[in-house]
């Protein structure tokens, strides 16, 4: 646990390491997993910023009934591109490409991922896809206006840039597959000597389960989007009833991927939380095996519940109860995780530092998001809230409140390791408070609006919904100010913060045994692992 031994050795951190190239090129052509992780971080932060601005524009539009600041067609384009950016460019790659890339190899005691060049290639593919997606906003025919779900036959009919947006999603999916593949091989082949699957830390476990989903589910959306593109280009009728196709089949194919994809977003987030809680409680994880296996269970069963997005599409009754039943079953492993996290806190020695603060609020928001998922999963209640603001609230709670807060937790937790600098705690706490309040103000009213019957993707609404919408919009602006403060604090930390020791939180996993920031080789000699990663004795 002591870090003086490593401090003595002369080392060059990966940030200063001199490679083949200089300057910018030493980054964008880097094959080092840590540099690639930072590349992803910067790219994703930028896209998050763009997506968030679009989100705010929607809030502005919805602040009053009727046309406020834009035309309906613009609004439709904005929520579509907001969805595409947030889903395909921010949350699906998010945690696994940034923190997975940076810490997966370190946590399993490896020098790099299995295929460093492929890793860099994935980043480039990601950038290419993202550029396409953003460009689809600005090309001649106008931004795509299908919603991120691209439902046929609207998507085969509308005159807007759908081909470009779907191509972008296809390319981004390709990048996601390659990342998943890389991680799977890394975990199977590159673990440090002595590290069995069951003494691997739990973040790698989560990444492992995630990577399987990325690998096996993404091709389905790939082929579906290809079919959609072929339909638009050549009039091959797979989904448009005018050409003989079946629009419901599109929904099946879409959700066969997109439901598992929501677990691509949340599993790494759960992994991050599982790393943070033991560190700040100085206690071994409670129920190590249960947490590890529940990740796999979520990934496995998660493949079989896609139909809960289609209860009202006219599916057969048999399919409706089947999907509903499995949807409820898949909630159980999530519950197990929550119980284990709480047990880990029990009788721990709790230190309420910013990462832990975010982790705890993650649990709170995740429970809200998850249990409202149960309300959606039940067929009867789904009928009322399907395609309403209730859904919008559900997924913002679970994606932004879940994966987003986990992302913030992760960055507060690992930033000292990544940059070797520390941020200001007080400012971080204030930012957290603003974000937390703003977040709940922004999305909670939408649960109520949704239940009262405010449909989603509505440019305009009936006057009775105005109070809720206004509170929601105000919350949006509070949230933004908090986020800006948070980002400011982090950036200042990286640029001017105090140097951080190798193990500022007294963590037990491997990344804390090496200097901050790590050297290019991570480890001077390959570590040999004999025990549980969370041993605080």
């Amino acid at each position: 646990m002591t870090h003086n031994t490593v401090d003595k050795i002369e080392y060059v951190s990966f940030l200063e390491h001199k490679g083949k190239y200089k300057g910018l090129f030493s980054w964008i052509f880097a094959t080092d997993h840590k540099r690639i992780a930072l590349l992803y971080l910067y790219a994703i932060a930028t896209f998050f910023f763009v997506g968030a601005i679009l989100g705010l524009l929607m809030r502005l539009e919805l602040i009053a009934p009727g046309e406020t600041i834009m035309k309906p067609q613009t609004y439709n384009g904005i929520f579509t591109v907001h969805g595409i950016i947030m889903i395909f460019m921010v949350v699906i790659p998010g945690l696994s490409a940034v923190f997975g890339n940076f810490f997966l190899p370190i946590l399993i005691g490896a020098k790099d991922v299995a295929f460093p060049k492929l890793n860099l290639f994935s980043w480039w593919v990601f950038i290419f896809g993202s550029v396409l997606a953003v460009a689809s906003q600005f090309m001649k025919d106008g931004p795509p206006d299908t919603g991120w779900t691209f439902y046929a036959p609207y998507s085969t009919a509308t005159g807007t840039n759908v081909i470009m947006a779907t191509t972008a999603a296809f390319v981004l999916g390709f990048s996601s597959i390659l990342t998943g593949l890389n991680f799977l091989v890394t975990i199977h082949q590159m673990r440090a000597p002595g590290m069995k699957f069951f003494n691997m830390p739990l973040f790698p476990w989560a990444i492992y389960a995630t990577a399987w989903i990325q690998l096996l589910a993404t091709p389905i959306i790939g082929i579906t989007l290809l079919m959609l593109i072929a339909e638009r280009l050549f009039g091959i009728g797979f989904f448009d009833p005018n050409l003989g196709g079946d629009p419901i089949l599109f929904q099946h194919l879409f959700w066969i991927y997109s439901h598992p994809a929501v677990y691509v977003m949340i599993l790494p987030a759960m992994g991050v939380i599982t790393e943070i809680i033991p560190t700040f409680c100085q206690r071994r994880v409670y129920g190590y095996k249960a947490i590890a296996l529940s990740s796999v269970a979520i990934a496995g069963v998660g493949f079989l519940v896609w139909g809960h997005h289609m209860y009202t599409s006219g599916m057969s009754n048999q399919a409706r109860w089947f999907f509903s039943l499995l949807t409820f079953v898949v909630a159980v492993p999530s519950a197990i995780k929550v119980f284990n996290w709480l047990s880990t806190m029990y009788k721990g020695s709790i230190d309420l530092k910013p990462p832990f603060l975010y982790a705890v609020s993650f649990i709170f928001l995740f429970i809200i998001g998850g249990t409202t998922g149960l309300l959606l999963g039940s067929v009867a209640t789904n009928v009322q809230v399907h395609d309403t603001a209730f859904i919008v609230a559900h997924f913002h709670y679970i994606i932004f409140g879940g994966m987003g807060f986990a992302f913030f937790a992760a960055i507060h937790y690992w930033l000292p390791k990544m940059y070797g600098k520390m941020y200001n705690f007080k400012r971080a706490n204030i930012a957290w408070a603003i974000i937390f309040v703003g977040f709940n103000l922004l999305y909670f009213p939408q649960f109520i609006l949704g239940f009262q019957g405010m449909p989603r993707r509505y440019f305009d609404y009936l006057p009775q919904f105005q109070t809720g919408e206004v509170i929601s919009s105000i919350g949006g602006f509070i949230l933004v100010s908090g986020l800006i403060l948070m980002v400011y604090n982090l950036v200042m930390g990286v640029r001017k913060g105090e140097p951080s020791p190798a193990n500022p939180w007294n963590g037990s996993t491997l990344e804390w045994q090496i200097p901050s920031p790590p050297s290019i080789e991570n480890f001077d000699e390959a570590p040999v692992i004999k025990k549980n990663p969370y041993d605080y004795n």
Partner: protein
Amino acid sequence: MANNSSHITDYKVLTRVLLVLMFLTFLTISVTSYNLAAFTVTIALLIAGVKSFLVLSYFMHLKYESLLLRILVSIVFVLFALIVLITFIDYSYR
């Protein structure tokens, strides 16, 4: 996977597998030319299944690979079968 170069498949084995595969191909063609109603699809798919099993085991050396990889390959096929089955829960009861 532990031992990559362990197995070398003999030319003779490969040739024999090819002959069986060709035989199965002709079998499919002749079987499907009879009208056995719903069974034809089943039989054609069964034969295709056997053929792919042969290709996987011998041409792709799966027979000599680690247990882990063999399990993974079967998981992929099972997963796909499940997805098709579940989709049919919707379509066959409409």
